[in-house]
């Protein structure tokens, strides 16, 4: 079946630098995308989302970019802080027989070094 995947399983950045986490999706029917942050031993937390009629959305220190032409999604974190260290998942929402289904990528581990 179609799936969501991530280009890099791990990413190490220095504190204060900007981070970019990438995600590729293959379901052209997906119309809604979400980024989640998961700290060790905890459940994933919603960070930011974007609909397919947009190509950019900004939050507090985070920006999500969507390129539908190449089916690519990215999460940019500005001025990365130690508290940003976590695993980041992208997820695509696509229509299915049961309504909408959320498909998660494998995750990227972000490590922020001092």
């Amino acid at each position, binding site marked *: 079946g179609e799936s969501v995947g991530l280009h890099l399983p791990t990413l190490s950045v220095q504190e204060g630098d900007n981070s970019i986490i990438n995600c590729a999706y293959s379901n052209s029917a997906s119309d809604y995308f979400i980024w989640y942050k998961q700290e060790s031993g905890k459940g994933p*937390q919603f960070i930011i989302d974007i609909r397919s009629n947009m190509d950019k959305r900004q939050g507090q220190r985070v920006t999500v970019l969507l390129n539908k032409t190449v089916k690519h999604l990215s999460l940019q974190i500005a001025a990365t802080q130690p508290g940003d260290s976590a695993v980041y998942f992208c997820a695509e929402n696509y229509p299915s027989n*049961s309504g*909408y289904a959320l498909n998660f990528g*494998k995750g990227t581990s972000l490590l922020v070094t001092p």
Partner: protein
Amino acid sequence: SQTIHQWPATLVQPVGSPLSLECTVEGTSNPNLYWYRQAAGRGLQLLFYSVGIGQISSEVPQNLSASRPQDRQFILSSKKLLLSDSGFYLCACGGGEKLFFGSGTQLSVL
């Protein structure tokens, strides 16, 4: 906004023993409820979802079952645990497209 309660946080069970993990939701009614499993260092695998009381859909064949006896209660069960059932189990709730997750249960089957 909804709050998802999951317990216990950690559980160690012997092979062949039964399992019951409970998830309850507050702050919403008639939510879609989900059970996910996450192996160490891996992504999220959808196990079951429910769109209403008594309505359970299974995504993958497995040793586990789920039940939804009340609108805001979702239970994950097994009659006999296998070693391969070890993992981090997450309950999630969603009324639309976005999912909200509980804090998870780390299950170790020994």
